[in-house]
């Protein structure tokens, strides 16, 4: 007894039989509590709410203070090593320990009487809480929690904590308390304690009245959960199993495995799912997810209980049921298992089709969510229709359930990983293709320009023009190769070892501007630079990364501008200041503004991802590589800089004013 058991050990212990209830629901006060189950929940609740809880089990058949004095301290004792050093020390003294216990018993009685959490000041002037666990209107156990010091609390006086969390002195003769006598005794104890422990460090943190209220509510919530679980053994197990599923899935999704044979996994999953369907007493069972789905669809990962004829699905089938997706997003709490009336889902053709297949039985659908990490699509769930009153299956079904959990987790991993790999491979292939284009095209131009120069007798002026055009093509090649080289250096973290240097912002901008002039002029685009930048002192940056950043921002601004517009580069020096109560370093801010294609809100982060290009960008320039802004991002990270993007429509036109504003702090 008192050994904390995990769920698997519990299942093993009761192999071949039913898991007994937490208490005998016929006479909960007299019966023994199932300590195995309670200890599992004790541990789970503490981990879930990050709160230290002691549980005192009431002595069966007793009442009043003796109900608690003679109770089972097992789970309370378990929490002891985690008490604050102050309380542990106090409990080591016989008198101190007795005083603490008397305080606990008395307030347990108070909590039982009130049938809710009672917050109180203990002997040492700390705020403690006692919360009754109630089954069938009988208090069978008491939760203890506390060890917090009231702000400005007066250690010597016992005070009553009111409903709003504030303190008031106890009135003489107040029910169950003799203030003068108790206070005197307590004063003596506290004096003794203080002298013994005056060098004790690590007093618990003070607690405010708001925190008192919050903790009261939290503990009431916890007790309610335990009370609910205590009354039904099947619910207890099924919910535990579902929690187990959640844990396994979430844990598996946290680890990236290597892609395996997905067909074999599908087969295994489908075999296991039918056992799960029976275990959960569902007419049919679908595992749905929005992994791999379109914006408006869901993927059916696998199903059981439906024939191919009824519901054809091979492995993953996409549904285009936007209504179902909407329902999942807006109407369903992914934290809870819910029972939904089937008729409420009849608007969803997908469900309606299923509903028509099974006219008999109860008209409810159960949705069991399987939470996944935030960066993956939500949700994954088991959706199925209840067939009959559920019953506990044998170990075989439970084993199948566990296998199913593993299988679903693997499938999800594989689906996500394969899709990521495919997308990455596709992006990389496109990137290489576009790099090839951006290299081969200027080379083609140079070859033919040179050919033309040899085949014709051109006047000097025209020869000069040809030569300049060749130089422009070479600069284009230089830009492409620079970006590729920078990318390699970023991947190899070469910049981390390079010293920063003082660099003129104006000179850098003007230098890069020169390489874009021909491209800009050909489309009637002006590139204007704020002349005030000339007067700036140099800034300390990695010169290669900085010039590449400036080039890429200007290049993008020109490329994605409409013809006959202006690209403008401005800057300002930002002084050091306090922002939201925190000091912010001064630095320089550069702004790159153009008029052209938009950048939508949901694209503002994505455009900094390597290879990512918006649809508008692709339409405008099919051959972009999608690495320019990734390089800008690397520069900003290296210099603790930031970027803000604004993109607003220009009324009366199809164009947008887009601004990239970067901030580079001093001393970065």
């Amino acid at each position: 007894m008192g050994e904390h058991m995990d769920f698997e050990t519990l299942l093993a212990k009761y192999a071949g039989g039913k898991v007994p209830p937490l208490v005998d629901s016929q006479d909960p006060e007299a019966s023994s509590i199932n300590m195995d189950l309670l200890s599992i929940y004790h541990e789970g609740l503490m981990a879930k709410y990050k709160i230290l809880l002691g549980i005192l089990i009431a002595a069966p058949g007793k009442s009043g203070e003796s109900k608690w004095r003679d109770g089972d301290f097992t789970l309370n004792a378990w929490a002891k090593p985690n008490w604050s050093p102050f309380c542990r020390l106090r409990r080591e003294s016989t008198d101190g320990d007795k005083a603490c216990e008397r305080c606990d018993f008395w307030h347990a009685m108070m909590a039982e009487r009130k049938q809710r959490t009672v917050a109180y000041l203990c002997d040492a002037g700390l705020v403690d809480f006692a919360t009754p666990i109630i089954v069938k209107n009988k208090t069978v156990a008491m939760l203890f929690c506390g060890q917090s010091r009231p702000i400005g609390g007066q250690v010597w006086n016992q005070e009553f904590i009111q409903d709003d969390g504030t303190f008031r002195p106890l009135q003489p003769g107040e029910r169950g308390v003799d203030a003068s006598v108790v206070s005197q005794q307590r004063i003596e104890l506290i004096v003794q304690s203080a002298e013994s422990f005056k060098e004790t460090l690590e007093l618990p943190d003070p607690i405010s009245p708001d925190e008192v209220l919050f903790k009261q509510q939290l503990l009431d919530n916890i007790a309610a959960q335990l009370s609910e679980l205590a009354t039904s053994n099947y619910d207890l197990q099924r919910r535990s199993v579902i929690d187990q599923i959640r844990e396994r899935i979430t844990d598996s999704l946290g680890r990236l495995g290597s892609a395996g044979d997905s067909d074999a996994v599908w087969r295994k999953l489908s075999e296991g799912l039918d056992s799960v369907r029976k275990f959960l007493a569902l007419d049919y069972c679908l595992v749905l997810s929005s992994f791999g789905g379109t914006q408006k669809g869901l993927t059916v990962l696998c199903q059981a209980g439906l024939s191919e004829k009824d519901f054809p699905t091979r492995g993953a089938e996409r549904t285009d049921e936007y209504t179902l997706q909407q329902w999942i997003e807006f109407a369903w709490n992914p934290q809870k298992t819910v029972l939904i009336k089937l008729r409420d889902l009849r608007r969803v053709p997908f469900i309606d089709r299923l509903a028509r297949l099974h006219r008999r039985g109860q008209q409810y659908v159960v949705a069991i969510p399987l939470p996944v990490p935030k960066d993956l699509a939500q949700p994954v769930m088991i959706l199925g229709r209840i067939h009959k009153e559920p019953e506990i299956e044998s170990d075989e079904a439970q084993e199948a359930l566990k296998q199913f959990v593993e299988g679903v987790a693997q499938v999800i991993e594989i689906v996500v990983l394969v899709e990521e790999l495919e997308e990455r491979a596709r992006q990389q292939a496109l990137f290489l293709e576009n790099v090839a284009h951006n290299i081969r095209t200027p080379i083609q131009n140079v070859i033919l320009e040179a050919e033309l120069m040899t085949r014709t007798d051109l006047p000097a002026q025209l020869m000069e023009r040809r030569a300049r055009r060749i130089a422009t093509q070479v600069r284009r090649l230089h830009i492409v190769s620079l970006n590729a080289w920078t990318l390699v250096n970023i991947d190899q973290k070469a910049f981390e070892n390079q010293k920063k240097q003082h660099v003129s912002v104006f000179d850098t901008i003007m230098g890069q501007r020169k390489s874009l002039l021909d491209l800009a002029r050909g489309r009637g685009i002006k590139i204007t630079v704020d002349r005030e930048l000339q007067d700036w002192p140099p800034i300390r940056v990695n010169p290669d990364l900085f010039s590449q950043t400036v080039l890429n921002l200007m290049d993008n601004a020109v490329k994605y501008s409409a013809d006959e517009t202006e690209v403008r580069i401005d800057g300002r020096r930002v002084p050091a200041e306090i922002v939201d109560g925190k000091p912010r370093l001064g630095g320089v801010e550069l702004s790159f503004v153009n008029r052209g294609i938009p950048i939508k809100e949901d694209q503002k982060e994505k455009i900094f991802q390597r290879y990512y290009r918006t649809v508008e960008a692709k339409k405008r320039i099919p051959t972009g590589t999608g690495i320019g802004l990734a390089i800008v991002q690397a520069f900003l990270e290296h210099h603790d800089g930031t970027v803000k993007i604004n993109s607003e429509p220009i009324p009366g036109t199809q164009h947008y004013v887009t601004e990239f504003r970067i901030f580079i702090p001093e001393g970065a």
Partner: protein
Amino acid sequence: MVKILYLEDEDVLVDVLTELLQLLGWEVKSTKSIPDALQWFQEQDFDIVLLDIMMTPAEGMDSKKVDYGRETGIEVARQMYELKPSVPIVAFTVLRDEQLRAKIFQAGAVDIINKPAEFDDIRIRLQQALRK
């Protein structure tokens, strides 16, 4: 005299290749505009068409269908072939992807010239296409 329609979105290439082809004595109609190219093709008689593949999709084109510009020239070739199948179409592209090359031929092109290419190679391949 050979009359060639040249569709290309790269300004410099349009200029310089047009000039070189004109030095051969060919009549060259060159443009960056897809609608102009299609209109000219329909209204005039050309002996041969030379077209780029990766181009910004034209207004009204299904961008997704042409993979946001990667296959624009293939769609143009297909339309031109449907209009006048006897006029040889030659693709002029940096793309080396085998699947894409198959699509180019399926659209009706008779040859694909890879960029970058020497002018003499371009000339020879165009002349071969004319003989087909």
